[in-house]
């Protein structure tokens, strides 16, 4: 079984890290959500463990901004990053062609600005590879990105959201090569190769080390104007780890200049094409490099080798049965995230909705402002939290809390405001104070509507909580994020199906509560 799954579940609410050096604490190793990043992070972790240093894995963090933000704030200690990405997407500097210059520049600015240290590169470059099907390349005579700029106006692009947004991604292609495609879709890394192969899109962004380029017989268009800077992979290390555990940094440096392009491509192929678990790939790679002893690493015995390629994996049912312990723990974590954030939202939003009745002219503005939070995409909201709250459970709870406020607030306000006028008039005319009208008439009569708001918020929460995995908060999003990164449908479903069932169950439960709230006195 995939050995990092249990590791991810135990991510708890860690105490805020003290600022005194703490050499005994585990090293928090993270990755970005794609296969190569998982493999490298797993190699970092196993190498540390081979030297008796505990590793706490937080794999599959959102994307560049979340992972680097977490590193800068000290929420994680190390993750694999690429120098070109650091130069352009993180530090916002102009592209440069020379690999040594880029590394020196990035290392100097990161250290000065964020206290982050770039260890010497691992030995391979992984640049963007703009790929098309061979038939497309032949019919349009595409060999270079210049050709794509000239003849690509009828093609459909399918790019990762990261690529569409970053300056060295699509905007750069537009600026330097004049690439204007017929349409551009945002695709998850896990599906873009399949989408290209199936003819749903015609151009994708890949990585030069991707194992799937050869498998699908794709043509990578040459960067003939040398737009892309060098993207050398390297471990980036937090200021906290430099202070707490220099020995761990020395261990990680053992990997510097040890992994070449052919080696990395072979590792990626084992993952993407053969479907071998990351832990085994990493353990084999470390042994092959002579960095761990010949015997299997202590952690690998939990991982069972799997025969055959991606198609030959055990069926979903058997997989879910074998994972029911971890899945139960993830479901419990998921419910905990939803329950706590929802309870907090009720405690704030219901009194606020009641209070707004006293200031009806400002009420709409307040509700609209709270509603605007709803329009912030989940992953963006989580990213905003990192500088304030780091990663893990706390920022996830805060984000879910913020998402829950609006439906509860809106329904509470409309519910207490919309109480039938005759009933309220009777109460007032017979001598109820305003507070009594609220407590004994408006609130009880609004209860079914408030409950409906809570129900909406709960269902939104169950869905949104799957995103919490992007910032290492656990829950049923973990297998979804990992499965997406590793193109493992079975793993995706093992998280997505329970999450969907959970949403249905929560909806049904609260629906019953809602009916109960009104059943006795409703003329139904």
């Amino acid at each position, binding site marked *: 079984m995939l050995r990092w799954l249990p590791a991810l579940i135990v991510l708890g609410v860690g105490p805020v890290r003290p600022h005194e050096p703490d050499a005994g604490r585990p090293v928090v190793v993270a990755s970005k959500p794609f296969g190569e990043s998982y493999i490298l992070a797993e190699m970092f972790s196993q190498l540390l463990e081979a030297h008796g240093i505990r590793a706490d894995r937080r794999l599959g963090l959102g994307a560049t901004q979340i992972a680097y933000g977490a590193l800068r704030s000290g929420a994680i200690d190390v993750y694999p990053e690429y120098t070109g990405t650091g130069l352009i997407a993180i530090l916002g500097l102009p592209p440069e062609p020379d690999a040594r210059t880029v590394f020196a520049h990035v290392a100097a600015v990161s250290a000065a600005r964020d206290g982050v240290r770039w260890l010497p590169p691992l030995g391979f470059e992984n640049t963007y590879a703009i790929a098309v099907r061979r038939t497309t390349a032949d019919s349009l005579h595409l060999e270079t990105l210049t050709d794509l700029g000239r003849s690509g106006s009828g093609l459909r692009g399918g790019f990762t959201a990261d690529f569409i947004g970053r300056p060295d991604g699509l905007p750069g292609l537009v600026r330097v090569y004049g690439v204007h495609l017929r349409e551009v879709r945002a695709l998850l890394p896990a599906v873009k190769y399949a989408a290209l192969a199936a003819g749903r899109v015609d151009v994708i962004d890949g990585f030069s080390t991707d194992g799937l380029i050869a498998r699908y017989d794709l043509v990578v268009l040459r960067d003939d104007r040398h737009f892309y800077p060098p993207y050398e992979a390297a471990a980036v290390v937090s200021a906290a780890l430099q202070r707490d555990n220099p020995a761990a940094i020395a261990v990680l440096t053992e990997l510097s200049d040890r992994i070449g392009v052919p080696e990395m491509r072979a590792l990626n192929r084992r993952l993407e094409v053969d479907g071998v678990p990351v832990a085994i790939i990493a353990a084999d790679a470390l042994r092959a490099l002579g960095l761990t002893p010949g015997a299997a690493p202590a952690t690998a015995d939990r991982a069972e080798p799997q025969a055959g390629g991606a198609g030959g994996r055990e069926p979903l049912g058997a997989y879910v049965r074998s994972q029911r312990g971890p899945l139960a723990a993830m479901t419990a974590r998921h419910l905990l995230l939803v329950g706590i954030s929802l309870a907090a939202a009720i405690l704030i939003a219901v009194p606020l909705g009641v209070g707004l009745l006293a200031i009806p002219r400002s009420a709409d503005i307040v509700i609209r402002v709270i509603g605007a939070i709803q329009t912030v995409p989940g992953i963006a909201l989580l990213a905003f939290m990192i500088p304030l709250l780091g990663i893990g459970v706390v920022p996830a709870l805060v984000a879910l809390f913020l998402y829950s406020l609006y439906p509860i607030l809106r329904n509470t306000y409309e519910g207490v405001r919309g109480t039938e006028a*005759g*009933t309220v008039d*009777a*109460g*007032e*005319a*017979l*001598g109820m104070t305003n507070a009594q009208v609220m407590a004994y008439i408006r609130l009880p*009569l609004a209860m079914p509507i408030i409950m409906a708001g809570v129900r909406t918020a709960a269902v939104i929460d169950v869905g949104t909580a799957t995103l919490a995995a992007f910032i290492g908060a656990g829950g049923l999003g973990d297998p979804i994020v990992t499965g997406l990164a590793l193109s493992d449908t079975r793993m995706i479903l093992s998280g997505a199906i329970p999450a969907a069932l959970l949403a249905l169950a929560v909806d049904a439960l609260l629906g019953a509560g809602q009916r109960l709230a009104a059943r006795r006195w*409703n003329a139904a």
Partner: protein
Amino acid sequence: MVTPDGGTISVDGTPTTALDPVVLRRRIGYVPQDGGLFPHWRVWRNAALVPWLLGNADAPARAGAALQLVGLDPAMFGGRWPHQLSGGQRQRVAIARALAARPGVLLLDEPFGALDAITRADLRESFRALRRSLRVTAILVTHDLREASILADRVAVLRHGRIEQVAPPGTLHTAPATPYVAELLARAGIQ
């Protein structure tokens, strides 16, 4: 409708402007047109509202007595929800609620308007008997001059917010003060 535009309204000799409106309202029984019962309270709790607001420990007993007054058996009706009652029963509960704290003044806003003719006549008759036996001051708002003639000691005819005439029903007939009053009586078929 709380502060008069001009003049004074006095209850038991005290101008209403000198009283706390909440305290004053608890001293006036109020019956709205549609009953205005709280749908989430059982009949008993509805009827006990004002004594309960006044902090009377015997509020349930007062509610029971009031229900008895309007002809509803508390044992039978006390535990029902308002939606389980007929329109006439609901209106009886509303009157019981208004009477439970034994106010000196009753204010009824078209209390029988939304009922069918038989129920209306029935309830009107009960109310007339009740008012005489309790000797309570009742101000009843109605559009039905026939109802006013049957129930009232004195009728004030209002037009555009001004009083056209205040008189016992008999005087209205014999000596209408304005053409409007005369026409109103003619139209109502009471001559």
